[in-house]
């Protein structure tokens, strides 16, 4: 085995988590018994969420998009824990036009960095439409928490918004002069959508960036209720505890090994895994398990790092934080089996209750709902949103709230699930119209 085979593993990881569901012989009724675990999602929505936008439905994208990697050290960074030595600088990605142009800043979804597949599609669409594009990680991405968070405990809409806003200012102050920016818009997908709107609302008060418009793509209305639903989805489709994960792994291993043995491949590569996933993911329960596991793996880092910074002692002993050579396998195993609710009760709430005298658990949850900026969302015509009628991170009530609040500045597509419509011709055209101020407005 050579180096090349050793190193091409990260996409493999993602695929593995997707194809994981292939191994799930779960009874569909176990899902329905858990109630509306999937929010609005129907079969098509789950499928679209897993496989994303079909390539043949993509908008026309430019042939070439230049890209620069920007690493920046932020002055307010907290002392870096030894084992996060590689996360000291914030990494964002810039695609600059040669001429004066508006800048679109795009914020990534839960636990993700600024260079995901979804991000590449949005970057291409925006760059093709003449924008400079700056893509940023989610404030819940480990690299952001370590390099740019002023608390180390991510997931609070307002706090994350302030950290993002400060980071944006610092980045823009250091960009080379040849990047001539006429004005700034912000966008975000999934949790990043909510972040984008909050950033714009902060800017309305502070006025340092003069952000013109904000577009939310598949935003959650309440982070904790969305994630709570995904916890239930995990319990229903995979089961509780690490034993369930182990069982899932065993089934997955057997399945992939059997497929591989029956094929005539000489190497287990990405193509094969894509094929395996596509050929074996069929039922709602399998899609659900894939989605639940992917999200769980994305949240593990934030949980671990939050505990490390807040010294809450839920995961590691604050008096003896893990050192460079220490194994983290047991910690990872422990975390995989924990629902996200544990992050809230064990790390998030204890930390913020101490920071904000008079707050209660209920008030913390309420402060994480998009209604903290509900007034602005309904009265300011420069906020826009795109979502789908079967996005599993929303329930009926939340979708109704968005419709009521945003009025005609919200567009609801009838398909796509969560993010399975990003990059489609209609979605891109609407997004660009919203940014350009060509979207019909009839806000109060």
């Amino acid at each position, binding site marked *: *085995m*050579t*180096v*090349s085979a*050793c*190193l091409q*593993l*990260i*996409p493999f990881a993602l695929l593995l988590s997707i194809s994981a569901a*292939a*191994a799930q012989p779960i009874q569909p009724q176990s899902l329905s018994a858990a109630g509306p675990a999937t929010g609005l999602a129907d079969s098509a929505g789950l499928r679209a969420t897993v496989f994303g936008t*079909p*390539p*043949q439905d993509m908008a026309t994208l430019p042939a070439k*998009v*230049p890209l*620069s*990697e*920007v690493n*920046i*050290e932020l002055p307010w960074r907290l002392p870096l824990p030894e084992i996060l030595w590689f*996360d000291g600088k914030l990494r964002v990605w*810039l695609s600059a036009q040669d001429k004066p142009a508006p800048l679109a800043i795009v914020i990534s979804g839960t636990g993700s960095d600024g*260079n995901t597949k979804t991000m*590449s599609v949005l970057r*291409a669409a925006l760059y093709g439409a003449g924008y400079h594009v700056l893509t940023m*990680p989610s404030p819940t*991405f480990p690299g952001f928490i370590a390099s740019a968070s002023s608390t180390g405990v991510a997931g609070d809409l307002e706090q994350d918004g302030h950290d993002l806003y400060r980071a944006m200012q610092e*980045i823009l102050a*250091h960009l*080379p002069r040849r990047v001539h920016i006429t004005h700034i818009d912000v966008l975000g997908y999934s949790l990043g959508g909510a972040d984008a709107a909050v950033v714009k609302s902060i800017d309305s008060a502070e006025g340092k960036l003069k952000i013109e418009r904000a577009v939310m793509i598949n935003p959650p209305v309440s982070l904790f209720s969305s994630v709570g639903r995904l916890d239930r989805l995990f319990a229903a489709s995979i089961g509780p505890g690490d034993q369930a994960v*182990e069982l899932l*792994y*065993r*089934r997955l*291993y*057997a*399945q*992939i*090994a*059997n497929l*591989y*043995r*029956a*094929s*005539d*491949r*000489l*190497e*287990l590569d990405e193509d094969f895994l*894509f*094929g395996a996933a*596509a*050929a*074996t993911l069929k039922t709602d329960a399998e899609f659900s398990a894939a989605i639940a596991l992917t999200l769980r793996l994305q949240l593990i880092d934030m949980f671990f790092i939050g505990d490390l910074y807040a010294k809450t002692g839920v995961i590691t002993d604050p008096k003896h934080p893990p050192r460079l*050579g220490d*194994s*983290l396998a047991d*910690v*990872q195993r422990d975390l995989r089996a924990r629902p996200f609710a544990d992050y809230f009760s064990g790390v998030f709430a204890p930390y913020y209750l101490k920071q904000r005298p008079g707050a209660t658990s209920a008030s913390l949850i309420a402060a994480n709902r998009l209604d903290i900026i509900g007034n602005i969302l309904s009265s300011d015509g420069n906020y826009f949103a795109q979502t789908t009628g079967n996005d599993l991170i929303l329930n009926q009530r939340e979708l109704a709230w968005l419709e009521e609040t945003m009025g005609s500045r919200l567009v609801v597509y009838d398909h796509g699930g969560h993010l399975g419509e990003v990059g489609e011709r209609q979605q891109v055209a609407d997004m660009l119209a919203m940014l350009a101020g060509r979207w019909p407005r009839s806000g109060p």
Partner: protein
Amino acid sequence: MKWALLSGCIALGLGGCASTVISIRRVPDQTPAADNAAAVASAKAFADAVAAESAPGSAGEAKAAPEPMPLLSPADAPPMYTYDPWERFNRFTYRFNARFDEAVFLPVANTYRRAPRPIRSGIHNFFGNLAEIDSVINYTLQWRLKYGLRSLERLAINTTIGVGGLFDVATKLKLAGTPTGFATTLAKWGMHPGPYLVIPLLGPSTLRDGIGFGADYGAEYGINPAGLYRGNVSWGLGTLNAVDQRANINFRYYSSGSPFEYETIRFLYVHRRLIEDQGLHSREPVKKPAADAPAGK
């Protein structure tokens, strides 16, 4: 000791570079239109393949007729947790590799990527052709003569018509390259992977695969084709080979940002190899798994 010294020097060097507030580094352009076209094509190819396979009485099924091997069951899966007795050493090596990659390997590879495509593919093909010698030897040792013959044909065609290996003519003649090495030979002979091992500069491996890598190099050194491995140019060529390989790998250390990256990579490397071993030992007829059968509707 040598490694400790070297890593110390490089760490110091890195510390020196790390003092600026911002760094902006151009990376290869993205090509969204072409990527999407490729995705359309591969989705179609996959759908076609599924349709062909699920057609009753197809050639694939006929071939698999003589007593199929039993399918693996979940109980046959190896433990989820990897044997890693050298973890402390491995973790430090992983970190060293990441720093080396960031400071030296990746910047050089990125510069190399700016060279015109025909030049790069010529270099890539040239080294691929040299490695074909090792593949011929190992396919023979594995007693998989069909593939060994294919490698031999490739070697002959590309060395002659392909001008010393600069052009991969054989692939165009439907003889696609499937390199193998001594690591796979050891696996075929039944050697267990042994403990997980992160090799300095090379990355994730196991004891067995590491030995295999050493043997591959030893074989090339011993045969010394065209005097390339022991002459004055050998260092330069070795470096160029390494840079070429790196430039063709889409991996960035710690781009996951995750404190668990070491664990994740270890799991993926070891289990992927285990599955490949499974294929090696039962490459002949295997009963078709249900999931592979009529997909779609």
